[in-house]
């Protein structure tokens, strides 16, 4: 297993947001995490990437215990996250934002190569190379966030709501790209509101509800599960 969460709890002040989450992500998989607003999906992501301290439980990545590791060191180990709300640096240009993604890497030639790859994936970004990140539209920012996350050549890519605020056309496109990235060898853990899309693309998925995992299974199984349909697909 590339990533293993074992009974992880996370608290905000006195409020426990995750009450013991266990999940695994295997090498080469796309795993989706779905659930309602406030169910704890983003908190799970933040615990994995190291932005929130873990109360109890353990996180293993690539055979190593990273529970207490600093966030920036996890990036060097190969965890990269495109955060919720995209987290574009508004005062930096598109190019600088992308270069921030490669902050931990020293070989210039490789970085340039990846920059090229990002521009190939998102030609839109190439057009806006010199523009400040804050002035991009929502969709462009989303592309930039995903592109930036790839710049560190992660083993595991964490995507937090990549479809948020995008037009249906763009949603399709983003998910296509996710699949493409996955096929190139990057493992993906995905948090989505858009359960339909996420489940149809993911190999496996977990359903979160108020800080607990209530269901897991293959993407297709969950897609057809009546309870899931009822709760998250809005089709009664």
């Amino acid at each position, binding site marked *: 297993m590339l990533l293993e969460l074992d009974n992880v709890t996370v608290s905000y002040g006195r409020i426990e947001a995750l009450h013991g989450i266990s999940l695994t992500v295997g090498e080469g998989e796309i795993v989706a995490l779905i659930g309602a607003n406030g169910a704890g999906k983003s908190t799970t992501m933040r615990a994995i*990437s*190291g*932005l929130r301290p873990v109360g109890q439980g353990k996180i293993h990545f690539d055979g190593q215990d990273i529970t207490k590791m*600093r*966030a*920036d*060191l996890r*990036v*060097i180990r190969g965890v*990269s*996250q495109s*955060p919720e709300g995209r*987290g574009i*640096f*508004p*005062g*930096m240009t598109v190019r*600088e934002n992308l*270069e*921030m*993604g490669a*902050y*931990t890497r020293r070989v210039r030639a490789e970085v340039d190569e990846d920059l090229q790859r990002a521009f190939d994936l998102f030609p839109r970004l190439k057009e806006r190379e010199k523009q400040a990140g804050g002035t991009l539209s929502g969709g462009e920012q989303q592309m930039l966030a995903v592109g*930036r996350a790839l710049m*560190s050549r992660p083993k595991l890519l964490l995507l937090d709501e990549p479809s948020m605020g995008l037009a249906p056309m763009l949603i399709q496109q983003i998910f296509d790209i996710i699949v493409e990235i996955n096929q190139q060898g990057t493992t993906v853990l995905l948090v989505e509101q858009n359960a339909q899309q996420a489940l149809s693309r993911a190999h496996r998925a977990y359903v979160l509800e108020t800080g607990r995992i209530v269901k897991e299974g293959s993407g297709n199984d969950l897609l057809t599960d009546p309870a899931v349909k009822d709760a998250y697909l809005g089709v009664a």
Partner: protein
Amino acid sequence: MNFEFLGDNFMSLTVTGLTQGAIYALVALGYTLVYGVLRLINFAHSEVFMIGTFVTTIVWAGLGFGVGASAPGTFGVLGLIALAVVAAGAASGGTALIVERVAYRPLRKRNAPSLIFLISAIGASVALFELVGAITDRQPRGMPSLVQPKVQFTIFGADVTNLQIGIILSALAMLAGLDIFINRTRLGRGVRAVAQNPDVAALMGVNKDRVIMLIFVLGGMMAGAASVLYDVKVGITTYSVGFLIGIKAFTAAVLGGIGNLRGALLGGLLLGVVENYGAGVFGNEWMDVVAFVMLVVVLLFRPTGLLGESLGRARA
């Protein structure tokens, strides 16, 4: 009020104001860097500057250029100044780093509210200047006049000396260097990233602690350089020298837009110049009043300073 005097000596006041403002600007950088990244008024920065002024005298005295010594040749003087910049930069940078480690880092680890940081900063400031005060018996310390000012040229009736040119140009050069560092290098990008969004910066692999150490050291070095310029210009220092310059530099930083490097430059120069005009018109004793009134007026019309906050994101 004496507007006639202002009219007659406008350029002359401008030049002296710019010289003064250049020093404000360099000190203001320290406030701006720390504020830009940590949203924290580093009250102890004034003492970081003060330490620099003393280290300069110690270095010079150690090399045989104590009080009353005559200046060596041009290259000797430049050498002494360069050496002082290195030593004062290191000392001030080091002091800033110590302040960060002792007074701020433990609080950051505990996620303390900003008011607590302010108190800790006040404590650090008091401790530093009282320490130096005790060591120096609260006596001013003089130093040799290294640069004998010579008038280089005259614009609109104002004599401009080599000393003034030197101070303004060195300040500009250092500022430009810092600007390039922050805007063009990988480490500088890291600083800006932490300023704009510390969490996401960590997701990019930026070590926040190291960035914070870096900005304290950078700010300290700029204050150290400023302290050398100050020593060359003023020729005397005391343990309490930091307080007023610190307040002025902080005012300059806010004026230009705190968190904004170029804002610090603009704020510093503007403050120096306007202060001098004010002193000319209303009398020297009203200088600080003019400075603060200008600050209030600017903030009323531009609540985030002249150039706005840019190192960090604007707060909602």
